[in-house]
């Protein structure tokens, strides 16, 4: 018993310590540094025209990228889970590519396709749409690096969603459209929210690909992370820290919100991040085979 207790305490301390050392300490150090010079300085740093422009641009483009990826990610996940077609395995493997390649390389790829010397870039330019060194370029870069989030968060929940729930809705008179909105979407909502929120915070912090495609024109196409980098380069760590802390704060609030939203009372936790086996739930004695099995 004692040795069990010891192991349990040791395991928990290790987990807590790990998070503390890796995440909390650097965060605290940064936060401390940002307010060390006083609140006024912090507010000043954030309200500097170039800083606030960068922050707004980042939030706007991240929101647009998130919305686009939510819709197309959901469609892609549905297609990948529900339909058999030649090359599905290849498509499924490609989804993870943005995780695997350096973001700088992602930026280079986008620059190569949409650059002023490329066919597509020239054609779009003639149509009045400048992608590179412009906001669409930033959004494209964000879309590329965040593409896996929605798809990968939704896939397991979609596979776990038994087809018979949708069929049950049909037998009760619901049309396929109603069934999609009333049964499919609510059932996968925790997964969808997870994907959407992760996409947003990841897009907020993206640097490598954007620095290549955005052109980084202050007040126009300079995002927050690039601004931070610029301030560090020009020996202004205080401003860099302040903007960083704000970005962190937004991300943190978004993640807390996600945690709350996906943990509504009575609602099941999304399987992706919570493996806790809740013995206090009644009804666990009955096996519930899923369609994925």
């Amino acid at each position, binding site marked *: 018993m004692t040795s069990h207790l010891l192991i349990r305490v040791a395991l928990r301390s290790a987990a807590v310590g790990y998070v503390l050392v890796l995440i909390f300490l650097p965060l605290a150090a940064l936060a401390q540094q940002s307010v060390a010079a006083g609140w006024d300085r912090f507010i000043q740093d954030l309200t500097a025209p170039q800083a606030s422009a960068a922050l707004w641009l980042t939030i706007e483009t991240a929101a647009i990228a998130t919305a686009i990826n939510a819709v197309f990610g959901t469609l892609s996940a549905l297609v990948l889970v529900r339909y058999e077609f030649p090359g599905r395995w290849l498509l499924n493997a490609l989804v993870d590519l943005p995780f695997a390649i350096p973001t700088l390389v992602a930026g280079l790829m986008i620059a190569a396709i949409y650059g002023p010397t490329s066919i597509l870039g020239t054609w779009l330019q003639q149509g009045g749409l400048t992608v590179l060194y412009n906001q669409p370029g930033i959004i494209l870069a964000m879309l590329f690096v965040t593409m896996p989030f929605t798809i990968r968060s939704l896939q397991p929940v979609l596979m776990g969603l038994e087809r*018979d729930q949708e069929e*049950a809705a*049909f037998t009760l008179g619901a049309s396929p459209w109603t069934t999609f909105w009333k049964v499919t979407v609510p*059932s996968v909502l925790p997964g969808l929210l997870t994907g959407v929120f992760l996409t947003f915070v990841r897009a907020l912090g993206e640097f490598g690909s954007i620095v290549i495609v955005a052109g980084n024109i202050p007040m126009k196409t300079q995002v927050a992370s690039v601004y931070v980098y610029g301030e560090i380069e020009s020996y202004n760590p205080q401003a860099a820290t302040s903007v960083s802390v704000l970005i962190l704060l937004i991300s943190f609030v978004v993640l807390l919100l996600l945690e709350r939203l996906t943990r509504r009372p009575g609602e099941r936790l999304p399987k992706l991040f919570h493996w806790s086996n809740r013995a206090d739930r009644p009804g666990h004695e009955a096996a519930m085979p899923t369609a994925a099995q």
Partner: protein
Amino acid sequence: MKIEVRGLTKTFGSSNAVGGVSFVVNEGELLGLLGPSGSGKTTVLRLIAGLEVPTSGDIFIDGKRVNDLTVQERNIGFVFQHYALFKHLTVFDNIAFGLKIKKWNRRDIEQRVAELLALMSLDGLGGRYPHQLSGGQRQRVAIARALAPRPSVLLMDEPFGAVDAKVRQELREWLIRLHTDLNVTSLFVTHDQEEAMEVSGRIIVFSKGKLEQAGSPADVYEEPATEFVARFIGSMNIVEGIVRRGQVQVGSLEFPATGFADGQKLQVGFRPYYVKIAEDPARYRQQAKLRHIYFLGVAYRLEIETPDGLILRSRMNKEEFRRCHFIVGQAVSFAVTHFRILPREGTSPSLGTESGSPIAGPLTP
């Protein structure tokens, strides 16, 4: 309302899941579709519901051909094997789902759900989520949800398949009571012959997408129309022999088989309780050795081996067993008091279905 299917066929790829099935479920009946897994019984249920499209054949509900109606338009209640409850909705909202789709007003919905919660002994559970319920409760919610919009027929796929043995027994009794109360035409699928026997008013036995026999539980048990039914339902000794001068000869056993040509191979089946055993070697004409004694709780099963190497099962009630003093390995005498000649697979199941006909009947020891 009455359900009728005529020549129903469903092909998946090159295999026939259902091959030309016709039967009727009478108004207010509780009918069980019984068969081993993969026999096509679930497909039949899904075809009636409109969840599958038949390759050929017709489906009638209340005399109306429903082939061209979508699942939404057929007004059926369907209970899925694994409940298929909406996990993100409370018990109340699960049951109300169909009513909201049909645009009932709020007061009527509340009243109907309350009524069903009471009927299903689910009072006070309306606010729970499916994962907060036991297996038996989930199943009752599933039935309540299916019944809520007042379907014309209730279809249930292995309704007790996913709950444990004790809950299952309770649910069976509860379903029979519910059916007696509501009297809605119900069709359920099961692979459990005991369940089919106990719950159904009538049973349809399926094998390999074909209808083997339809009848009351007693009919199907006592008068199996095919070898498959005989083997699938209950326990039966099945022996094979060749007809000689109007008798099927199986070693030293002889079964009258008038009307069958000499040299024909026939199968004879008899239930274990029609095999009588005595310690006294002179009591019955046939001799055997007692190989095993099994205690079954309500009775004993004795396994004997004839000099020809035939192994037969006999069933004996406790009182009778106690009067004898059987020892494994001892010599016994036995007789088969009733038997049936079984139609071969693929032959007409009408053969020998009449009790007392020359090919089925009591034997004098």
